[in-house]
């Protein structure tokens, strides 16, 4: 059994894992519809269907302020900056951010910020986010870290995308200076990526930011990886993908 010892939490262009103490992962609450029909094959029983889903997540975090610099964000400023804003990607990664680590992500409205600080205790807060559009995606981390040059991941076999399903990819750039970072999600039908095709191309960025891309299936390729280029300087980013 695995103990939760390390994880990564991103809200838009910020990493909050240095403050977060615990996370309820993006769960999709589903409005279950119970119904019954005259169908003799189900006589005497109720049936069930999935209604609308709503993603939500919450985390406990330490509260830190930075009153002196607008550019050095601390947890209070990060959450306040996202406050009441919709469609900001939230990504939760279990592990240290290796390629293939499980990731949950969705586009969220930051809807709750509840600081709590009894005298003598660490100042803490509970943050609630809810999905503002689109599904909660159960996927994988493709690439997380600081880069000073271009490169690509080794690739993961995450399966094909059936008709009606889509590729969802979230990019969080927490730092970028001295060059342009361009991140692409590629697929291929072989682990060597000898015939790679770009499936999600994020716009080039020169500063911290975030982006979300959806690409509709069907896509028969089963191998997936991130590829990035950097014209100079350094960039720190996290890119996650999943099929839903």
């Amino acid at each position, binding site marked *: *059994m*695995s*103990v*939760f*010892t*390390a*994880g990564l939490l991103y809200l838009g262009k910020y990493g909050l894992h240095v403050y977060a*103490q*615990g*996370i*309820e*992962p993006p*769960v*999709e609450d*589903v409005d*279950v519809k*119970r119904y*019954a029909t005259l169908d003799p*094959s*189900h*006589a*005497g*029983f*109720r*049936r*069930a*269907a*999935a209604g609308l*889903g709503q993603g939500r997540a919450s985390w*406990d975090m330490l509260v830190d302020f930075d009153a002196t610099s607008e550019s050095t964000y601390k947890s209070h400023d990060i959450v306040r900056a996202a406050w009441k804003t919709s469609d900001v990607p939230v990504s*939760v990664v*279990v592990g240290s951010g290796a390629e293939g680590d*499980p990731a*949950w992500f969705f586009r969220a409205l930051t809807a709750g910020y509840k600081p709590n600080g009894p005298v003598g205790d660490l100042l803490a807060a509970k943050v609630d986010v809810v999905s503002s559009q689109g599904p909660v995606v*159960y996927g994988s981390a493709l690439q997380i870290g600081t880069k000073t040059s271009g490169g690509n991941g080794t690739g993961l076999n995450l399966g094909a995308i059936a008709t009606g399903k889509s590729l969802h990819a979230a990019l969080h750039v927490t730092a970028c200076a001295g060059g342009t970072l361009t991140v692409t999600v590629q697929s291929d039908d072989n682990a060597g990526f000898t015939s790679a095709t770009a499936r999600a191309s994020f716009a080039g960025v020169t500063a911290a930011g975030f982006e979300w891309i959806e690409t509709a299936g069907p896509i028969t390729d089963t191998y997936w990886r991130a590829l990035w280029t950097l014209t100079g300087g350094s960039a720190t980013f996290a890119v996650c993908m999943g099929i839903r």
Partner: protein
Amino acid sequence: MVATNPYLSVNAVNLSTYLRNVDPSGIGEVEQKDATVASSTGVKRVEAGLEGWSIKATFKQVFGAGYVHETLRAAHKTIVAIEFRFDGAAVGATNPKVTGNALVLYKPKLGQVGEFLEAEVELIGDGAYTWATS
């Protein structure tokens, strides 16, 4: 009989090895319909209405193909085959099984740092279920 080794499969994947707790108490719920009629007995009369059923389970979280997360993630919001037994031993007269189709609601749990990773699932019955001894 003490339940030490319950069995639960979801979409034909046996997840029993990772079961922390299973709550089958939602099996066998029936709506009670008031069927009271004029009578000298002075009591209410009820009859059974429609049955609904459900099972809740908690697993230790395991990632990777064929394990808890992948199985439940893929089945989330879909209706799949379910089998439950009070014991993982072979089905028989003293170890009946419940089978049916159910809507899967997957609720992964991370929790506080330092705690075990767990996964919860709620299985909402879609149509009939069956108790069988073979």
